């Protein structure tokens, strides 16, 4: 269901929710955000809970950095803690660290909700049709999206060719030395590829100043307005709950 929603409606909601997660420094709000985003993905988009947990891992690792920094490097609070005889777990530094930790996951889950339920092509078409994103930038984004799998395929071919010279199959993941050695050829490939794409688009009539039609741009429906209204109502409720509590 989330997949069928207008990408710009989802973008506005997700941006608003991420902004709130940054501004509302409260662990309960971050937790509510994580739960709502995860539930929306599981219930409305039938995303596997295991995938959601897996997606949380990188954000959790990132957030763990905030947590440890907050707990271990708050020199000024250390003396106060000892005087007051408080444990680290009850300290303000720890609760701040937990909030930061949860905030990283909350922002990550909101981003994941958007990324998992939005067709990038539809987003760019909507941006060009409704928010007047210049087609040159829009189609550059299309090309950039194409470049990622192309770079991966190119890297695989280069690795195969080098493995052949070494006389053994390539390893699944390249080591650091091999990674560094791939940088220059891949950079050269990306530059060549970008130049060709620019020429191809020009050949097919893409001009910066000419009017153009955007076909199949997503249109706003009643369900999009309902989604936006419900999402903002939920956001307002969460903020009020935190403020009251």
């Amino acid at each position: 269901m989330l997949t069928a929603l207008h990408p710009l409606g989802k973008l506005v909601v997700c941006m608003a929710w991420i902004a709130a997660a940054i501004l509302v420094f409260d662990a309960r709000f971050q937790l509510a955000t994580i739960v709502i985003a995860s539930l929306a993905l599981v219930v409305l988009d039938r995303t596997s809970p295991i995938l959601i947990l897996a997606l949380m891992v990188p954000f959790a690792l990132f957030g763990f950095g905030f947590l440890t920094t907050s707990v271990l490097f708050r020199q000024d609070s250390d003396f106060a803690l000892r005087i007051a005889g408080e444990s680290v777990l009850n300290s303000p530094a720890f609760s701040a660290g937990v909030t930061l930790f949860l905030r990283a996951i909350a922002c990550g889950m909101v981003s994941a909700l958007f990324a998992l339920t939005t067709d990038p092509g539809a987003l760019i078409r909507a941006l060009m049709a409704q928010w007047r994103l210049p087609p040159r930038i829009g189609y550059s984004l299309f090309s950039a999206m194409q470049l990622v799998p192309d770079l991966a395929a190119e890297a695989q071919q280069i690795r195969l060719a080098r493995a052949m010279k070494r006389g053994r199959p390539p390893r699944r993941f390249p080591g650091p030395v091999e990674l560094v050695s791939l940088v220059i050829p891949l950079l050269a490939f990306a530059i060549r590829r970008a130049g060709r794409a620019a020429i191809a688009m020009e050949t097919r009539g893409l001009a910066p100043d000419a009017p153009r039609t955007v076909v199949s741009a997503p249109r706003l429906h009643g369900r999009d307005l309902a989604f936006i209204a419900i999402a903002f109502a939920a956001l307002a409720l969460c903020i009020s709950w935190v403020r009251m509590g």
Partner: protein
Amino acid sequence: MPSEPRAPEPIRPAHWQQLSIRYPFADRPAVGPVDLSVEPGERVLLLGPSGSGKSTLLLSLTGLIPHSIPAVVEGSVRLFGVPADARKPSAWATTVAQFFQDADQTLCGMRVEDEIAFALENRALPEDVILRKVAEAMRRVGLPEAWRRRRTTTLSGGEKQLVALAAALAQEAPLFVADEPTAHLAPEAAGRLHRLLMNAGEGRSVLIVDHRLDGLIAAVDRVAVLGRDGTIVAAGPPGAIFRKKRDLLDRLGIWRPLASFLDAELEKVGLAPADPPLSVDDALRHLAGAPPEVVRKARPAIAAFVAAHAARPHGDRAGGATVARLEAADCAPFLGPTVLHDVTLDIRAGEILGILGANGAGKSTLGASLAGLLKLKRGRREGAPGGIAFQKPEHQFVAGTVQEEIATSLGGSGARADQARQVEGILAAWDLAGFRDRHPFELSQGQKRRLALAALTAGDRWPLLILDEPLAGLDAHGAAMVAQHVEALSRSGRAIAIVTHDMDFALSLCTRSVIVGDGGIIAEGPTAQLLSQPSLLKRAGLAEPAIAPAMCWLDRVPAC
């Protein structure tokens, strides 16, 4: 006395006048001076050896050179009577549809329907008109409706090429320009593309550069030939060019259709048809119902033609030792899912094995698995590791100069003087001596291909060689050189597997072939036998070799 008013000259879709293009830092023009035109409704084939400037000439048509690709341009280009530089290249999209060799040069990574709609969106056509034209283009090219919402990144190379063709046809431009459109297509798809491009009923003018002439040439009105110096050295109707300029084309290393070779053989015995033939069928048609003495005279000529272009005797290699063997193997591309199941295949010393199949069938994966470069998902492989000449030769290059590339492949053993002599010998054998100090990436596509093959075959490290599309980007001279080297390597006892879309090339070199399709090997046997089974070829998305009618004629017409 007042002179009679001259009839106005027709407005030519494309007209190059004394055009000469020199790239920055180049010591001579890449092409020109050239005088060439395309008349309304005319279908022109541009031929030339590697590096003669064909692609450069096409890029100058709408001003991409010098507008987007820097170069010094002298002379003029006019499109429908208007100087090309009077508009930006993008403004010519309504007039000229361009189709590149590499589909990735045409596509932007969108969904199939968005790719086809792109040029029409740029013309600001109403949405319903665009959707109708998209549906029509998909129908004409034969793209399944299920592809509409597929990202082009998920398609195989040949499939992308068909989407690019649909996108170019949807432009409905009065001039269509195509640069080697069938270079990476399997025979059936290439035939379909040729038919769509050259459909005369549409009144479109077409300018095409292609090496794959059989199946195309009959639809061409005029051929223009660029020489090595980038000037037009011959032009005229295809029949006349391939009959009267045969020697010139051979000297320049330019591809000729097989019918032209048969025509030459029949000419030697005084039995060439009155009109120069454009297909092998054309060349034989006048012999149908001919008296026995004529048949008796024609037979040796046709037999000589078939002997020169069908599988040559490589000696009996069946008894050679097995070099590599796959047994009940499930093969998958690197980091990809299984594409071929339960493959059992071996290759013997001195054997040349053809690996044939449609685009995306898994031919390259089979080749790399046979070489031991890809881990099998199931089953086992026995034998020494093999070397691969990859489809993109650039992937193999590791050195800064051409001679270093060869020296690296030879390894460090032996005296320096000996190695230098060896390198010189290899460069001379592959016609690369003039480029020894150039960076491999600076070479033309054909030269890169030759360097990659030269580096792979230098020394005796690999008892098994896999050549993946070894003819791509090569002119006839380069292709003949590859064929000679392959035969020499086979005679020296190397096992060679050739992945190719060129059925005539497979027939001329490979004594045995496998046909890949439906997720496995669907046939294996002598190449000539496999390629004479129409139902098998249809199932595999292949086409019979152009030489087939001559082979049938020899079988059908009794020796007197």
